[in-house]
């Protein structure tokens, strides 16, 4: 879309689990300042936060880019992780390959991709084994 009003870029640090969610929190604040309604803020924040968590749990971190326009928010999450062998299975509620560490922190319950699919209007996943995964989400305002 040509009417992009703002773009944001974040690096998602793979080693610091405490900082996961920073990009989503900051994005939420920017959208709030731009005057988007609370429902849109929540949907963007939740979908992006789940994506950030996935990047740290399953890949070695990555990048998060956000394109904000009046009609839609586009989030692109890119990692150089192991890739997703079976997307259909990964999308299933409750299916997870997360580590014990991720589980002990309250994640890895197999809800991440399911939640992203629920809150985003569009979810496109491109993945290649051994190369990485790109997740694109569009949330319409």
């Amino acid at each position, binding site marked *: 879309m040509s009417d992009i009003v703002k773009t944001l870029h974040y690096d998602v640090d793979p080693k610091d689990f*405490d900082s996961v*969610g920073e990009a989503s929190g900051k994005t939420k604040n920017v959208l709030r300042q731009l005057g988007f309604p609370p429902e849109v803020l929540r949907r963007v924040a939740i979908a992006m936060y789940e994506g950030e968590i996935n990047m740290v749990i399953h890949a070695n971190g990555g990048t998060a880019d956000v394109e904000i326009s009046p009609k839609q928010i586009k989030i692109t999450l890119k990692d150089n992780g192991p890739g997703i062998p079976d997307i259909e299975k990964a999308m299933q509620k409750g299916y997870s390959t997360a580590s014990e560490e991720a589980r002990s922190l309250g*994640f890895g319950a197999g809800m991440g991709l399911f939640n992203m699919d629920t809150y985003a209007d569009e979810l496109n996943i491109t993945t290649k084994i051994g190369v990485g995964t790109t997740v694109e989400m569009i949330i319409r305002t």
Partner: protein
Amino acid sequence: MKVKQVIQILDSKIITGEEFIENDVFSACGSDLMSDVLAFVKDQGMLLTGLVNPQVIRTAEMMDIHTIVFVRGKQPDDSVKEMAKERDMVILTTDYPLYVACGKLYEAGLSGGRPTL
């Protein structure tokens, strides 16, 4: 229900956010699984959990949850307290386990809320 009533019902200690005890809490949810909290968006306002780490604050931030109760006597560390303060959140602790804490609040009229998305 007001935050100060929650404090009374749960024999809670207030860790941060004393200035918000007159705020209203419309509904609540209880879970140790942050992904489950993220799965059900409601106008909840309060989260009860036995999990004490920064991701609880992050989850609350994404969900517009303003009050967090740490159950089973769990104590947040300074970094968690600081994060909550920066976000104008209330943190309470209670010695009750999750089930009992939720039950007491439910009995007192605080509902689980309705999905809003």
